[in-house]
């Protein structure tokens, strides 16, 4: 059962859970399981076509899955899948987003 590490910014959508254990044999399956369990994460993670959104970085342990097999990368029991969005902080007065 690989573990998915949920970044703080997504935790409201996972009922506050920071780590979620899933069955999934691949990274893609693991993330889809997360999205099924917590539907609010689906749009954050996946595009309407079902691909991983480009602005979401996903790591298997410490390696970006993009340099491996993308969503088809195997995720074994002892593996950790890390979801990583970018951060820019700021006091909020000038955030242009």
């Amino acid at each position, binding site marked *: 059962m690989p573990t998915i590490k949920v*970044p*703080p*910014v*997504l935790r409201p959508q996972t009922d506050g859970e920071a780590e979620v254990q899933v069955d999934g044999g691949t990274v893609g399956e693991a993330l889809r399981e997360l999205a099924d369990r917590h539907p609010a994460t689906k749009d*954050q993670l996946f595009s309407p076509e079902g691909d991983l959104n*480009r*602005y*979401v*970085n996903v*790591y298997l342990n*410490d*390696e*970006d899955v993009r*340099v491996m097999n993308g969503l088809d990368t195997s995720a074994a029991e002892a593996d950790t899948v*890390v979801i*990583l*969005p*970018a*951060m*820019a*902080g*700021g*006091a*909020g*007065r*000038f*955030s*242009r*987003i």
Partner: protein
Amino acid sequence: MASTETLDDIKARVKQVTPAETRAALESGDAVVIDTRDAVNREDARIEGDHYAPAGQGASEAHSEEFAERVEQAAGDRGRPVILYCGAGNRSAVAADVLTKDHGFKDVASMSGGLTLWEIQGLPVVTPEGMSAEQRNRYSRHTLLPEVGVEGQLKMLNAKVLLIGAGGLGAPAALYLAAAGIGRLGLVDDDEVDESNLQRQVIHNTERVGQPKTESARQTIEALNPDVEVVEHRTRLDATNVIDIIRDYDVIVDGADNFPTRYLLNDASVRLRKPVVSASILAFDGQISTFVPFEGPCYRCLYPTPPPAELAPSCGAAGVLGVMAGVMGLLQANEVIKLVMGIGEPLIGRLLLYDSLGTRFTELKVRRDPECPICGPGAQEIPESEMGKFPDYELFCAG
């Protein structure tokens, strides 16, 4: 040295002279003065007109004929008056004893209190070019480190570092870079100090509320370390000024509060081949990496596309633990210092994540993206005439 003998026994037996007597003998030519310390100490400060013969740890080398020969060479012969000195007067005493007992020297003295007492009594020392006596004292805890030394400290004193933002990350980074003696610190920020900043932007204080942040930062830095020149850039970085501003600096600290600036800075820094130490914080989390153009990935390799607003709230919206600014800002300062001195292993190709609630560090690998439009092999070569022209990163991020 007999095992039952103490240092005090030796010192009682050996001829001792004061620093003032040593100076007088040196000036009149009545004695040859010899430094017995390790080479690394010699680089720091020494007595002008001295000679050099290291006596080794605890004067262990003093027993060797090699040491005796070096002293003899400096003195002319073993009958001439010699005064040995070291840091505190211990090693030189033991060495003087050995030279007298075992090597046939007739007139060897040890300077009591060593160079430490010499300096306390205000006698002059020779320091390497570039550092005054005050600087030697100020940075002594740095120069004591073998990996730093006087050479490393001089590199810091001659370095020019630019900080994008004098806020959450810029504040602690600037403070510690100033303390370290980075010779020039540029600060880019057009904001004013607000009371809500003081929970984490510790370079400012209550009296400075309302003041421009760069001015407030400059005041704190000048009081902390007069060696540091602060250059205020009271503006926001944009496509029209980024090249001109970053051009004169060696390393850039990215503490920007928005994505368009980060992407713009990345583009410009890769064009000018400036290393960027980039960090970000939110709530209880922080990220940091060091981008050295073409040596490792760039910001765009790591984040090819900016996230939508709901995935990247500001601290003003979501909050941030004050100490996070300190932890990550200081990690940035640490990276800068390593880059400036060329020591250690900077976070090139490594993204360090810190979770302050669990007090856990996680390290992820970052690779150069072969398709990166900024630093990839297929990236456009920018001719000098186009250096100042950039894509619209506001639009890119609004996308």
